[in-house]
């Protein structure tokens, strides 16, 4: 199964909807509760990051017998210092985001903690975050 969803820059009103849809799909697939919880947390944080910090992009979910994988690919402006962003509490959230109650941190450490494998690449042209999870076949 492969599905792609678009996320718009600063579309706070719809922030979290893709994650909800993903969560529903995973439940329909009978993904085991503990795994579902980790995925839900990671995907939600990553989606919100995309809304707050990026110029928009796409989330792709791929599922086969052995794994569940996500790609978060945005169109920039990139994370200048990934190492700093990996520190708990680091935030570049702007005023608009804070008004919506988002932006306590980028949540990258939390995303990493809630994934089996975590890979992030960033340049001014965009950030690509790959997450993957093993499932019992």
């Amino acid at each position, binding site marked *: *199964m492969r599905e792609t969803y678009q996320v718009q820059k600063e579309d706070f009103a719809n922030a*979290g909807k893709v*994650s*909800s849809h993903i*969560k529903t*799909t995973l*439940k*329909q*697939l*009978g993904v085991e*509760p*503990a795994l*579902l*919880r980790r995925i*839900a*947390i990671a995907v*939600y944080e990553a989606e919100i990051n995309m809304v707050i910090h990026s110029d928009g992009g796409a989330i792709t979910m791929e*599922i*086969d*017998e*052995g794994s569940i994988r996500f790609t978060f690919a945005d169109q920039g402006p990139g994370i200048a210092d990934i190492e700093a962003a990996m520190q708990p509490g680091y935030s570049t959230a702007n005023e608009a985001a804070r008004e919506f109650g988002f932006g306590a941190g980028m949540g990258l450490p*939390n995303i990493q903690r*809630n994934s089996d494998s975590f890979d992030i690449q960033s340049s001014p042209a965009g950030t690509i975050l790959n997450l993957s999870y093993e*499932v*019992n*076949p």
Partner: protein
Amino acid sequence: MSTVISYTLKQCTRCNKCLKQCPTSALTVKDERIVIESKRCINCGACLDACVHQGMQAKGSTLADLENYDYTVALIPTAVFGDCETPAEAATLTAAIGKLGFDEVVELSSYDGALMNALEEVLASDTGSGPLIWGFCPVVHAWIKETYPALLDRVIPFVPVSELAAADVRKRLKAKYENIGIFHLCECVSKLAMAKYPYGGKRQWQVDHALSLTDLFPQISRLQNKCEANLSLCRKGLTQAGMNLFLSEFPQYDCTGADGLVKVQRALETMEFGQLKKSRFVYLSNCLGGCVGGNLLWGNPFDKQVKIRDLCRMTHGQSAQIEASELFEEPVYEKSPPVSMAQRLKEVAEINAQLEQLPGYDCGACGYPTCRSLAEDILKNKSSLDKCRLRRRRSA
């Protein structure tokens, strides 16, 4: 959970109101009658309220069952006192219930009090991630089990208060009577269901019958003027029956409350995303204002929250002394047999392919609550695409 709701009309007017209200898509219309998928039902009672013809009913036991026992005990939930302005009124209400034919009445506030004290300790020592959930509301418990299983390990595994009391009563009376009948008078549909179909756990369930308080109300109100009685309610236990009151008992834990299915759903979804970060405890109840708003009680939940708060200021009874080990029991949930991811992917792909054929409006005209539920039944060969009225109209 199994359902205690039954459909009683000969013919349905097909307004589809119940279908639309059911949070778990447990209802469908087949051959002009409502069919309830028992396993899916969480006994929230939404369909009872939705049906303008009173077609949906929740049935418990009846007083006729009193005859089968040597000695009978009524358990009275704290929430009924939401209707009382003074302790004296609470006492007459309790006595009136006794006059329905019970040998003894036991009101539950002291047992609720024991749970409230234990909760204090649980909260103080919790180090888990995400807020704790008090699973006293069987609707919430069942909903989490069916739809939000990832949150189950955050539900505090308290033994239901009616069971605590029933066990205590049995211990006290077992030397004197052989055949003791314990009747739980229920403030809501889900408690009826819990007594009838207890969930999880290894314990020997102690309550024999569940009675609906609405059914008994006319008799109780006739008896109420003719009673004189004494009663000492436990303040701490009473606070459990109203949401606002409950939350005010634990100011140091940043507790959050959500009442009614819409808010409960929002809270559960938020927790599932790990986003409820500021609260260490959540109070979730199906009924408005907590159990005082129970769907088998009379009166409105707003005034009752105020009344029970006032009542609390006038009561000084003690909470029951119960061993900590008896307050908790980890429920054991039956597991469905594992299905491989490959198999699931195949099934979901098939359902999605069927869904492509349907308009996706979830209009309910086919008798199914959602297009998805129709698609599922088509794949099980229990229905067909021509059930869809919009498709029929388009092809006509």
